Structure formats: structure tokens, C-alpha cells
């Protein structure tokens, strides 16, 4: 079969046709010969068995009535059959009844007896047995032996016949196929030629010519169709290719642009950036990175993150934790990390590690190092400044308290002064002198006191005068006593005020458990005169269930004094007739809320957040840290200070929230 593959189609077809013809002829001849032999044999058997039947029929009487002579006579009639060489008749017991042997034929000895009909071809002979029956009675068997020479002679002729037949058929097949194969071959050869020219010239515009409308015609149609499609696709491909090239160029330019942008960005940033892929290779970095870590050129040349880690670990203070962190990260590449590295040289780097993703998949990490040494320093400085400021504000708060205390003390001192003047005045105008006058008079008349009293008109008037004087003096005493009582009260007040100041001016950090309302009252008391002076009406809305709070008293008081004073200023500035200040003490779930509400000038929205800033004030003589320090103090004790206002002219409210217990200080 392999042989067939490499010869031309024309020959292939020829070979196939001839092969097929030969095989078909072989089969036909074999069938013909076989059939002939078989049919000849059948014919022989039939002919012989007819003869046997005739003999059997003839011999029934002879067998039945035991007449072998007649049987032999009947057998002799077989002389007419030239092929029949021998015959015999057996009786029912298998004994030979009669025998026939053709003249000139070899001597015949009857073969073994058979009860049943049968025939066998052995050698050149056909041997045939037929039972003899009369009315169903088995009488005996007839045996015939035929010569097959005729068949042999006929068979000898077959090879010649067959070879003639073969030669003639193959010749005819050759001639016919030579003519007919053009029908199939030519279109195929034509198609092959066109295909070859297409393949060589890449010219898809050629077309094969259709010669018939059978499968070959369809094949050529299909081929042409295919060529058309290829042509179209070729054109489309060419244009797509051009288009693609353009797009690639554009995309390359874009890429170059974004790459340069990326590089520029990388270099423009103040941070050190390095990108590492999952295998631990440094993909890219900026100069800042190399500079801030002072990475030796050798380390960067290796491109290994491992190398860099080994190098950087020598710089970092806590290198074990630094390396462990990186190792931990390699197990969780999607994690984001923001931490701070302290370097031995006092530098502080903020490190931000973010995963690099491509289509959601993590392909690497980008490490961003920011030198925050300066920031840390500033933070430290700022913290210090803040602490100082807090100190200052506290002192300022204490100053405010002191101011109000002094003010109050001053007020009371005025009253003391007044009382003292009145007493002095009264004492100056005292009737005490009249007593000494009476005493002189009495001393003059010491010898004649009785006469004087009874006869002298002056003496007679004296008791009445004394009576009158004692009444005046009693009055005077009562007045002075009351005035001194007043004075004592004033002095006690001063005492109280000073004691209060001492009470609040104590050092911080000491907490006490107090009633919130008491604190409010103290704060109000400290501002009482100012509020009264400016005619501000104070409304107290105290929730009686408000629980005790444990706080640093002076801080809360300082805040409250400040709030009340601010409210007073706000009311004063509004110029309203009815100035009102509501103080609400209410309980929240775990805290107490003290709200100072005024109907003063209010706060514009834009200022609501700024009012807690340090240095912000709307008053000409304000320092701008009253509310700021208030908010700080509130936060220090674990509370909050919140401002609210509906707008300018609509008043404002400040709520101080205080925890029931001081917050745990973390030191």
C-alpha cells in the first residue's frame, strides 16, 4: 500500500482498477470452476441415483421372491451407461444378492454393505447406495460405482479457459479504465495544478474550472469558495495587521510615556520606593531609595531583595523584628503593612508595604520608605509646646479664677469699707460725751447731791435727761452692733472666697467626689456679681437624679467659670433687654451633662469648629485660649466639650460632658 502513495494519481487509479478487476476475476473464476465441479458432481449423483432407483424398483420382486437371476439380469441393463463400472444388490441381511461388473473394467468386489442411502466420492469413483423398498418394507440395497474420468477431463480444460478469460478481461478493463479515468482524473489534476499555483504564487485570485456537477464539481466549487474566503481573509488580515502595527506603535509610545511618567514620578517623590516580585527579585527602585538607605551599588546590582534585607538589617535597630516582619509578609503577600523603622543612626523611616496586583492576583510588593526623622522631631517639639501650653492655660485659668476671686473680695471690701465709715460716723456723733457732761455736773454737786437733785432745776431735769440719753445710747449700741455684725459677715465672706480660691488652686491630679450642682453653684457664685451687674437672669434646670461625679474639681470649675463668663459676654454684646442664662444639669447613661445656654450673639457656622482652636477669639481683650484650654481640660478628665449654635443672634449652647469616674490614665 505504501508503494501506492508515491505514484501519480493517474497510475494509482490504474493500478487500483487493475487490482480490483483481477481480484474480481479471480473470485469469478474460482466461483465458476467451483460451481462447475459442484454441479457436475451433483449431476453425477443425481444421474447415478436415478439409475439406482430404477434398479431398486426392478429388483423388488426379485428380492422379495428370492430371484437373484432376475436381479443380475436387471443389473446387466446398466451396460448402457458408459460411466458405470460396477454394481451389486444386497439382500436385507447384507448378503450379496447380485453383482455386475463392466466388461474391461477392473475386477469388482462388493464393498461393505450399507442399510441406508449414501454416496461418497473416493478417488476417481462415485459410490452410491440406495435401499430397495416395497410398500415400506426394506428388502435390500443397491450399490453403484461410477467412474469420474469425465469430470477430470473437464477440469483439465479449466485453466486454459480461465487464463483466456483473464487476459481478455484485463485487457478490456485496461482499455476502458484508460478512457474513463480521464473523467475523474482530469478535474483532480486540474485542481491540483491550481492549488499548486496558489501555493507557489500566493495568488488567491485564481479559480479552478468546474467540469462536472458531481462530487468533484462540488469539490471544485468548495475549493473556489475557500479561495474566495481566503482572499477576503487575507485582505482583512493584511488590514488588521496594518491596524495592529499602528496600534502597537501607539501603545508602545503610550507605554514609553507612562514609563517615563512613572520613572519621573518615582524620582520626584521624596520617598524611597522599591518594588519586589514574589520570587524576591527587586523589579525597580528609585534613587531616593538607594540614597536614604545608602545602599551599596553591589547590593543593588544583585537585584536580590534578600541581599538588601541582609544589608538593611544591619542598619535597623530591631533587626530581628524587622526580618521577621518580612518573613511573615511572604506568607501573606496580600497584606498591607504600615510601620516605623528606627535606624541606629537616629533616623526614623516610615515603611508602607502594599501588594502589587495584576488582575486581582498579587504579583509582588511595593515598599515605600519615608524619612520621618524630622517629623518625629517636630512632633516631639510640638508635644513639648503643647505641654507648656496646657500648663500656661491652666495657669491662665487659675488667673481667671483668681481675678474673679479678687473681684469678689474687692466688692465685699467696699461693703466692709462702707460699714466701717458708718460706724466711724456714728461713733463721731455719739452721745457718749453727754454722759461725761452729766458726770461733771454730778461731780460739781457731789456735796449737795440731794439738794441739787431736788432743788436745782438742772438737777431736777437730770433724771429725765439721763433717761433720754440712755435711750439714745441704747439705740446707738443697737445700730453699731448691727453694723459690726454686717462687717463681720463681710469679712467672713472674704474668708470664704479666699478659702474657695485656695480650694481650687490646688495642684492637679487629685480627684474628689462632688455633686455636679454644687460645682455649678460655685461657678455661678464666682460670677455672681458680674452677672448681677449686667442684669443677666440665671435659670437653673437641675436634674435632681444627677449622680455624684469624681473629678479634678478645679479643672471643671475652671471650665464652668469660663463658660459662664463667655455666656455673660455673649448676652451683654447682644444688647438685648432680657438677658438669660440657662444652666442645665442632666444625666446621660454613664455621664453627667452640664449645658450652659445663652440667648446672646450666637456663633456663625464657620466659626463653630474654630472656636476651640488655640488663639481664636472674637473679643477684643480675649486671649483665645479659654475654650481651647476648656476643651483640653474636658478631654484630660475623659469628658468632652461640645458647642452648638443655630447661627448669629440665635444664642449658643456649650455642653460639658463629664464621666462619673475619671478615665484611666495611661502613663
Amino acid at each position, binding site marked *: 500500500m505504501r508503494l501506492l502513495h508515491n505514484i501519480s494519481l493517474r497510475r494509482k487509479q490504474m493500478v487500483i482498477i487493475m487490482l480490483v478487476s483481477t481480484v474480481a476475476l479471480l473470485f469469478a473464476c474460482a466461483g465458476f470452476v467451483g460451481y462447475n465441479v459442484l454441479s457436475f458432481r451433483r449431476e453425477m449423483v443425481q444421474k447415478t441415483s436415478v439409475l439406482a432407483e430404477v434398479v431398486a424398483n*426392478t429388483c423388488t420382486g426379485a428380492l422379495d421372491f428370492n*430371484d437373484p437371476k*432376475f436381479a443380475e439380469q436387471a443389473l446387466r441393463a446398466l451396460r448402457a451407461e458408459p460411466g458405470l463400472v460396477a454394481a451389486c444388490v444386497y439382500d436385507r441381511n447384507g448378503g450379496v444378492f447380485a453383482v455386475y461388473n463392466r466388461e474391461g473394467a477392473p475386477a469388482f468386489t462388493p464393498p461393505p454393505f450399507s442399510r441406508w442411502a449414501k454416496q461418497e466420492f473416493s478417488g476417481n469413483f462415485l459410490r452410491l447406495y440406495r435401499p430397495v423398498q416395497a410398500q415400506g418394507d426394506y428388502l435390500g440395497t443397491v450399490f453403484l460405482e461410477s467412474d469420474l474420468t469425465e469430470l477430470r477431463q473437464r477440469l483439465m480444460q479449466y485453466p486454459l479457459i480461465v487464463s483466456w478469460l483473464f487476459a481478455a478481461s484485463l485487457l478490456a478493463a485496461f482499455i476502458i479504465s484508460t478512457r474513463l479515468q480521464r473523467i475523474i482524473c482530469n478535474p483532480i489534476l486540474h485542481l491540483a495544478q491550481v492549488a499548486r499555483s496558489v501555493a507557489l504564487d500566493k495568488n488567491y485570485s485564481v479559480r479552478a474550472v468546474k467540469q462536472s456537477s458531481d462530487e468533484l464539481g462540488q469539490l471544485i466549487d468548495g475549493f473556489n469558495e475557500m479561495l474566495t474566503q481566503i482572499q477576503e481573509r487575507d485582505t482583512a488580515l493584511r488590514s488588521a495587521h496594518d491596524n495592529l502595527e499602528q496600534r502597537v506603535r501607539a501603545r508602545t509610545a503610550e507605554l514609553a510615556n507612562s514609563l517615563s511618567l512613572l520613572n519621573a514620578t518615582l524620582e520626584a517623590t521624596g520617598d524611597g520606593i522599591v518594588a519586589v516580585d514574589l520570587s524576591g527579585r527587586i523589579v525597580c527602585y528609585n534613587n531616593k531609595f538607594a540614597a536614604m538607605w545608602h545602599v551599596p551599588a553591589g547590593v543593588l546590582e544583585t537585584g536580590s531583595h534578600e541581599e538588601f534585607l541582609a544589608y538593611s538589617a544591619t542598619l535597623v535597630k530591631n533587626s530581628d523584628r524587622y526580618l521577621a516582619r518580612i518573613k511573615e509578609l511572604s506568607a501573606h503577600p496580600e497584606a498591607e503593612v504600615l510601620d516605623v523603622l528606627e535606624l541606629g543612626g537616629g533616623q526614623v523611616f516610615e515603611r508602607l508595604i502594599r501588594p502589587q496586583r495584576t488582575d486581582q492576583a498579587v504579583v509582588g510588593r511595593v515598599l515605600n520608605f519615608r524619612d520621618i526623622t524630622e517629623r518625629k522631631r517636630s512632633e516631639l517639639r510640638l508635644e513639648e509646646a503643647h505641654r507648656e501650653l496646657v500648663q500656661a492655660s491652666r495657669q491662665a485659668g487659675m488667673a481667671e479664677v483668681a481675678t474673679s476671686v479678687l473681684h469678689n473680695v474687692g466688692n465685699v471690701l467696699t461693703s466692709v469699707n462702707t460699714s466701717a465709715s458708718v460706724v466711724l460716723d456714728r461713733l463721731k456723733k455719739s452721745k457718749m460725751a453727754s454722759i461725761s457732761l452729766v458726770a461733771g455736773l454730778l461731780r460739781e454737786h457731789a456735796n449737795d447731791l440731794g439738794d441739787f437733785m431736788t432743788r436745782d432745776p438742772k438737777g431736777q431735769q437730770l433724771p429725765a435727761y439721763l433717761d433720754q440719753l440712755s435711750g439714745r445710747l441704747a439705740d446707738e449700741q443697737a445700730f453699731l452692733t448691727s453694723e459690726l455684725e454686717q462687717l463681720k459677715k463681710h469679712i467672713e465672706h472674704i474668708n470664704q472666697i479666699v478659702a474657695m480660691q485656695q480650694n481650687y488652686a490646688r495642684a492637679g491630679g487629685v480627684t474628689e467626689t462632688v455633686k455636679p450642682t454644687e460645682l455649678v453653684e460655685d461657678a455661678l457664685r464666682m460670677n455672681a456679681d458680674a452677672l448681677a451687674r449686667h442684669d443677666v437672669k440665671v435659670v437653673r434646670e437641675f436634674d435632681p437624679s444627677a449622680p455624684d461625679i469624681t473629678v479634678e474639681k478645679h479643672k471643671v470649675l475652671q471650665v464652668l467659670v469660663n463658660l459662664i463668663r463667655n455666656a455673660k459676654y455673649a448676652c451683654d454684646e447682644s444688647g438685648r433687654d432680657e438677658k438669660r442664662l440657662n444652666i442645665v444639669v442632666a444625666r446621660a447613661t454613664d455621664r453627667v451633662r452640664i449645658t450652659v445656654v445663652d440667648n446672646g450673639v450666637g456663633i456663625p457656622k464657620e466659626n463653630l469648629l474654630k472656636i476651640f482652636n488655640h488663639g481664636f477669639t472674637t473679643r477684643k481683650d480675649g486671649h483665645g485660649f479659654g475654650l481651647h484650654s476648656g476643651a483640653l481640660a474636658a478631654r484630660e478628665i475623659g469628658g468632652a466639650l461640645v458647642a452648638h449654635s443655630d447661627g448669629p443672634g440665635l444664642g449658643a449652647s456649650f455642653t460639658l460632658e463629664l464621666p462619673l469616674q475619671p478615665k484611666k490614665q495611661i502613663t
Partner: protein
Amino acid sequence: MGWRLALLWLVGVVLLSGLMPAKADSQGPSEAQLKAAFLMSFPKYVEWPAAAFAQTNSPVVLGVLGDDNTAGALEEMIASTHKTVNGHPIMVKRIGSDDDLTNTCHLLFVGPSERARFGAIVAKVKDAHVLTVSQSEDFLAQGGMINLVPKDRRLHLEVNLTASSQAHLKIGSALLSVADVVKGKAN
């Protein structure tokens, strides 16, 4: 080789039977048995008119007159073979008196002892479609149909076709082929 032995045996048997006829009875078939076999074979070659049988399976009756040996051999043979001919079973009937002759059998074997009454017996069954058989020279002359003739150690047949055709019996060619057809008196 078997056939040679058989041939030898056959020759031996023939010689012995010739030398010792007295012992033939025990060695080969007896004359009565031979006769019985012939009588059993005749119905195969003879065609009776349909009227001779009441039904298609009515028996073929073989009557035996005056030969008890043959009748006995027949009875033995029938008992051992249960032979039928054309669907008819074969029966033997011993005929004691002449009165039994009428319409009782299909084949009548008359023993040679009845030679004197051949004519009368044949006449009695003339119209009864009976094949008459005997073993006597003058049987056919008396109107009998088949005569068994012992010759060359076997039985030859003589047939009187005139008599048989008068009785509307057809004797088959196979039988005729081995028989001598003789002219005899019609019965």
C-alpha cells in the same frame, strides 16, 4: 474381508443344507416359513378393488385352508413383525370348513392336500376378490391364480393372469417380473 468370510459362510451353509436336508429346518428357513414369507409379500404386489375393504385400515385377511404348518408359520411371523400393507394390518385366518370361504379373506392359500377340491374351492370364492394361492401343478389349471413351484432349492412363481384379472385383482409388474405367466383356466 468381511464379504469373503460371508461368501465362505454362504457357500458352507448351502453345501451343508444340501448334504443334511433333515437339518434344514433348524438351520435355515423351513419350507413353511418360506411359503409364509411369500404369502406375506403377495399383498404388496397385488391391488384389490376398493370394495374388498370395508375401511382403509381394515385388515388384509390371509386365509389358510388345509395347511396348518404354513398357517402357524404365518401367525408366528405376523406376531413378530406386526406388518401392514398400505395401511392394512395383516391377519391370518385358518379356514376350517368351506362355508367360511365366502367373504372372509383376501388371499386364500389352499394346501396341496386339498388338490381334489381345487375346482370347487376356487369356484366358491370366484366373485369375492380373493387371490388364490397354492402349491400344486394343476392348481392354475383348476382356476387358481398363483402357484408356488419348488425348484433349485427355492420357490418359483407361476401366475394365471386370466384368473386374477377376472377377479378384478391387479398383479404388479415387480411380481410378474420374477414369475412365469402361464395360461390357466378362468375361475
